[in-house]
């Protein structure tokens, strides 16, 4: 990770006067405070949305939520784990595009939808493994590696499909059930399949992170990789498999997006990697690793998604909505560090100006 010098926060654990138990308690408290804040923000968005539009708190909104962010949210789950360990994966959106393009390419060449989907998932495994290999075995910085594979995977998608939209005019259309997977809710409800999948994944990832020893190791790796290594945690292996998992889930999201659009082009989902990172960071996951929770990320996704719909209801230009995305992200780092900065400023003012 590009951790910066100036920016490295002075965390509570380095204050030195408290026992380690205090440190943990402090961290726990600060985490809970962050999530409580997210709940408040989410409530505010819901109140704002329903105040401005009578159709806001209806099933349509639920459907649109899933339609707009379901597949992005799925990519945020493995990303949470990767950022927790102090790494990053910027190739997620390209993997999504590559997987969709692979389905489209094979479909165009007469394959059935099931084998095509299977190959797309395998592509996810291979792509994730390549990232993992370069980061873990070769020891390259993940941000540089995944910027490279971001370009590479999108490039392969481009080679596969060129400028075509699949299904091309002379192709068979995708099977109806496949298209319906993206266009209809589960069993006639307004809950999209992507939302359902996301919720199931969120529960699985949440259980892993918060209730298993593997989850505890992720925190340990993020806080202090060497110490984690010495306590017997297989740091390299875990990181490698996280990248593979990321590849698989992004490939799966790519299939869902293809179903949702009932078509695919090579550039599907371009640029989404930064949205995914933004969601994860706003959810309270530290970019340095070692801090964050799945409920936090889920809340953050819910806030981004509902805010987007509330603002679209108000006819706010989607591009202008970027301001809010950005501000939320800035707030997510400024608020936890703001108090520290103020304290520093105050102590500096109180100190008599000796030098300079």
């Amino acid at each position, binding site marked *: 990770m590009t951790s910066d010098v100036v920016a490295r926060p002075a965390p509570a654990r380095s204050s030195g006067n408290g026992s380690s138990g205090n440190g943990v308690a402090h961290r726990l408290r600060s985490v809970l405070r962050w999530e409580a804040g997210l709940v408040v923000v989410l409530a505010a968005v819901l109140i704002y949305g329903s105040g401005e539009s009578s159709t806001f708190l209806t099933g349509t909104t639920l459907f649109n939520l899933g339609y707009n962010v379901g597949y992005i949210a799925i990519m945020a789950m493995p990303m949470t784990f990767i950022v927790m360990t102090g790494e990053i994966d910027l190739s997620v959106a390209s993997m999504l595009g590559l997987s969709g393009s692979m389905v489209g390419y094979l479909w165009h060449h007469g394959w059935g939808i099931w084998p095509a989907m299977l190959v797309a998932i395998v592509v996810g495994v291979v792509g994730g493994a390549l990232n993992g290999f370069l980061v873990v075995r070769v020891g390259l910085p993940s941000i540089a590696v995944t910027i490279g594979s971001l370009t590479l995977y999108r490039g392969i998608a481009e080679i596969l499909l060129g400028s075509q939209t699949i299904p091309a005019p002379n192709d068979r259309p995708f099977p109806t059930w496949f298209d319906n997977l993206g266009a209809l809710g589960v069993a006639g409800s307004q809950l999209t399949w992507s939302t359902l999948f996301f919720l199931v994944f969120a529960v699985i990832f949440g259980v892993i992170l918060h209730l298993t020893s593997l989850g505890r190791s992720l925190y340990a790796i993020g806080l202090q990789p060497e110490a984690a290594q010495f306590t017997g945690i297989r740091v390299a292996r875990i990181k490698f498999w996280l990248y593979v998992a990321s590849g698989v889930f992004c490939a799966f999201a790519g299939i869902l997006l293809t179903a949702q659009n009932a078509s695919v082009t090579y550039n599907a989902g371009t640029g989404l990697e930064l949205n995914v990172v*933004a969601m994860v960071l706003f959810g309270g996951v530290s970019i340095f690793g070692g801090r964050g929770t799945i409920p936090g990320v889920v809340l953050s996704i819910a806030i981004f998604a509902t805010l987007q719909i509330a603002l679209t209801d108000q006819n706010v230009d989607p591009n202008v909505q970027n301001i809010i995305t950005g501000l939320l992200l800035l707030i997510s780092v400024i608020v936890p560090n703001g108090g520290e900065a103020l304290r520093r400023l105050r102590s500096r003012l109180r100190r008599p100006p000796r030098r300079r």
Partner: protein
Amino acid sequence: MTAGAIGREIDGRSWLVGLLRAREIGIVLLIAIVVIVTSVHNSHFLTANSVQQLLSGAAIVALLGVGETLVLVTRNVDLSVGSVLGLSAYVVGDLFKHEHIPVWSGFVIGIAVGMVCGAVNGLIVTALRVPSLVVTLGMLYVVRGVDSKIVNGNRIDPDAIPNSFTAVGYKNILGVPWLAVIVAIVVVVVGFVMRSMRSSRELYAIGSNPDAAALAGIPIGRRVFSAFVVSGGLAGLGGALFLALHAQIDNSGGTGYELTVVAAAVVGGVAIFGGSGSVVGAALGALLLNTVSQALVASRVSSFWNDAIAGGLLLCAIAFDRWLSLRVTRSLLSAERSTA
């Protein structure tokens, strides 16, 4: 840089040191190979016209790469450059359209807009001590949003921009495009400053070892702040040049540039973890990426191969850097053992 100084003391390893130091030469060679191979296939590749296109095409990414290098060297990153470029391009275009400002002031205003954005980045990063990746990612969205708010669905068309301004985008001086000349001047000036001035050497010190830099009395906050301001200012200048080159602008100018710029710098040998790399390298990295993509077009390889090759190139570049630094470490260790 520092590796070069240490390496000089190790006898018999000078070729390696030479290679390390000559990262720029390596890229130049690579560009030359690509150009030669391509021109064997297609004699039109080396015509003045296509070389001019090559240079203009690489110029803006190279310019942004220079600013990005300053930030990367301090172990930070600036992801907002693409949005800053878009904002400054539109602001300049808008002023041309409605205020009919003089041509020269277009560049000044572009730079100023960029410097303001860079100052906001720098201020948040240094005063609040928060990670630059998150801050500039946030600014990427905020600046793009502000841009869209100002643009408000409009666009600036070529007839609103003075001809003498767009001339910068397509005219040549002694056969070299003005764009390339301007960027080359920036590269040379910043490159010289980064090599020779104390304050800019301190940027490398900060990136190599922040704690040691702080103990050595380097004003880290101020230096990092300046790096962000320069990066913003160059992105702003990039915006003005972008407007001159394309002669039109809407709210999407520069979208997605941030990762291309980082990629160009990394291909050019700038370490993503800070402490090493040169602005010349970053600019050459941009030129190499653009040469490859132009070469594909000239070789009638489908341009669809573009991204895949650029990505592969980037991965090879960082793997190569890693291999090189491992070699240096090993040679240092063996030198240590032989003296002990």
